[in-house]
């Protein structure tokens, strides 16, 4: 559960960014839960590793909020899996969050460079 000592601090997800990352990942194509986790890990080059204990509840929460929708499909190796995809509301949310995120990071960068 907790942070193992010695592991790099960067592993810890910045507060409140998980949903944004999930939205971004799902924006490409619908995926199942493990796919999302794998993709985030790959794209971040292993910096972020999403724990299924946070990922699946986050997906359930977002589904309830109407940002993603789910459906059962068979996977490439012929198993049933729950695929998540973005809804229009999810797309809008992604756009909003991206804009506000870049504004914030730009501001933080300015402060750090000052």
């Amino acid at each position, binding site marked *: *559960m907790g942070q193992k000592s010695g592991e790099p601090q960067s592993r810890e997800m910045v507060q409140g960014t998980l949903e944004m990352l999930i939205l971004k990942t799902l924006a490409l194509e619908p995926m*199942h*839960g*493990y*796919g999302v*986790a*794998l993709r985030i890990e790959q794209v971040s080059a292993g910096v972020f590793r999403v*724990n*299924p*204990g946070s990922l*699946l*509840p986050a997906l*359930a*929460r977002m*589904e*309830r*909020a*109407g940002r993603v929708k789910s459906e*059962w499909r068979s*996977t490439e190796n012929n*198993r*049933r*899996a*729950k695929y998540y995809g973005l809804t229009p*509301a999810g797309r809008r949310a992604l756009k909003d969050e991206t804009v506000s995120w870049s504004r914030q990071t730009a501001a933080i960068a300015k402060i750090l460079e000052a």
Partner: protein
Amino acid sequence: MGLLANIASGLRALTGRTRVEREMDEELSGFIDASTADKHRSGMSPEQAARAARVEMGSTNAVKHRIRSAGWETAAENLWQDLRYSVRMLAKSPAFTLVAIVSLALGIGANTAIFTLINGVLLKQLPVRAPKQLVSVGKALSGGVLGGVDMGTADLYPYDFARQLEKQPGPFEGIFSYNSRLRKVGVQVGEHPSGQAAQMLLHLVSGNYFGVLGVPMFMGRSIQPSDADAPGRNAVVVVSYHYWRETMDADAAAVGKVLTINGVPCTVVGVAPAGFYGIALSTEPPELWAPLTMQAELTREPSMLDANGPYWLHLGARRAAGYSLAQQQWLNTQVRSYVLAHEGAQVTADRRKEIERIAAPLVTAASGVSSLRANFEGPLLILMGVVVLVLLVACANLANFLLAKAAAREREISTRLALGSSRTRIVRQILMEALLLSAVGGVCGLVLAWVATRALIDFVAAGAAYTSLHAAPDISVLAFTLGVSLLTGLLFGLAPALRVARSDAAPALNANARTSSASGGSRGRLLPRALVVSQVTVSVVLLAGAGLFLRSLTNLEQQSVGFNRTHLLLVNLGDKFGGIKPAQLAGFYQKALDRMNALPGVSSAAFANTAPMSHSAWTSSMQVQGYVPAPKEDRDSILERVTPGYFETAGIPIVQGRALGREDAPGGLKAVEVNLAWAEHYFPRGGAVGHQITLDDDTNAGPWTIVGVAANTRYLGPREEPQRQVYFPVQQLVPGENSYAEWLQVRTAGDPDKMTGAVRAALAQMDPSLPVLRIESMADLTDRFVANDQLISRLSSLFSALAVLLAGIGLYGVMSYSVVRRTNEIGIRIALGAQTGNVLWMVLRESLVLLGFGLALGLPLALGGLRLVQSQLYELSASDPVTLAGSILIIAAITLLAAWLPARRAARVDPMVALRCE
């Protein structure tokens, strides 16, 4: 849309629980499988990979729990679980649950019942347009006909003044007027009716009364200004919804029908809406409304519509926009200039100053003006305070019970905490139990209140068949009960819940913990004791209050009213006796009295213009021979007219001289009887008999010779000081308005109530059309004067008995519980040689300390708080020592009894058993 989808998917989750669970399992295992496969591919052994994947996931149950908590349905489900658990917990201890629900039902029911009355009498607004804009000119409580005083002193106004304001309402949207009292009139259906007339209450109102009030008529139209624009205009009538339904059989064609009222055919023009009882609320509302310009015709009395006429109307108004000082000033100016204009030219400067001080205060009338309110406001507020205190005592009891239960469940709760249950969940569950109890108690209370309120209304309305008060709870009563139940539940659930919130997982799980935290911890026993002390405190206050009201009532009932009130039957004749002319009255009296005296069981009978202890409006000032009045002295006396035999019949003793009798014949010496108060005022050194008085009333000026002095009678009930009275032989008065004596009084040998039928029959036999308004015994009439006192004293005794009982149960519970918890300790004490007496004393001492604290707090509170009710007490101080001593005795006895039972049980503890138990 999102919200609806959310709700839908929540409902799906609730209904298809197994499917949702299966899908969740499938998703999780799929995740783990994929993760395992990936790790395997990247070089781990299959076992390592599976293990690593599991470790990443953590506890699948925890993850599932977190997934589930994403939806609202989980919270609802938890609540439902808690509710079911609470029901099970309560069902496990049925005795406790029953006691809890009964005491809550009594407490909440009492609150609801009193609130229903308060709502009906004090709070409910009139069912008219924008009631908040309505004002009354003065409190408009006195009813009657006045002359010779300044306007504004009795809130009564003459017709021409009312008419002037009606035409020119100045800054008001409208000013209306209405007769200051309701009149009983004989009503027959149809234009040429036959048979007995029904006696109905009629209210005479101005033409704009309905319009300015803004009454939405149920049917037809209301009385219009054009119906009442000149004396004698128009014979129209609006009937109440009740009358329309009960007497007109809900006739759809009621409008246009004719009712004959006191012989005058009147056309029904409209039906008032249900729930409209007029602006003046009384227990018995009017059934009919007619234009006040029909006053002379409908009441068979001389017209009161002339210029310079008597004061008999109340005024009400609607404010155009908000309150402003200008409205008040304008009204005062109107009153003053009217008075000034009617005093003539010779107004002195002093008088002018006096007139400048006359004021007609505006009083808000959103809930109507009400004699009910004036009479019952004090008692109802006192009773409300009493029932709130009773409910608090019940709350303290339940808090104590729940505390004890929570303490007994300490192990269970610690276990739950240790297993990872959240503290809020446990607190919520305990609160839920409390709220469940209070909700069930509230529902039972509502039913109880409905029954109790009906009894209360019967009492307040003095048995009137048709009344403006309703027992059925309306929306505000329901809201009140809901609020009280919720608040009660929170109040008594809070203490145990907080205690649980503070409790710790570790110590209670220790095997030997029970000695330390449960029985020994003085902090844990502080709260229950504080609660018991507060119960004793409140009980002392309630007992003292109830005692005061009971003693006050006894004082009132034993107060001599100056006449013999047993065996006296009163018959009220109305409508000027159904058309008898003044000249025929002497014969009528003679005939009626002969008939009465001929009835078996009647010892004597007489007529008078008022019943003893009723309001008479006949007053006059007079000149008294040999008496020089002080300047500006009030020289008014109350005048009574009686037939021979009155003093004997009413049982009023004659102090000096003789009673009025047959010898005071029409042509003979004009004789009067005065009462003691009169004699003492004018002839403080005695010798009133033989002196002459002259009335300032031209028709019957006199001179009249005083032939005797009668004892004082109370005039407006036992609280009042005796007033100056002069009795005239009715046969010596000039035949006219003042020769009608409406009250036939019959002294009976046996129970007067049993004579009612015979008296009524004899009167009907003599004249079938004689309007008999009511027949009742003097005892009933006098009881009505102490109705408030009876209401307060009976209910407050009942409620304080309830409070004391609850406090007793509470104390018993706390002491029993403490004895059970200390069985161990007591066993050791006995084993070490403590005697039965020592153990008994140990337990009793504890309760005596609690009693002492309760008294120390309660007595000052009672002394301070009960001063507020001093005005309700009759010849009794609010700090009456006898009452206080009595209440201390009662509460002490209850305390000792409640402590004695557990103490005896403690003394019987077998040390072997007690120690082995551990």
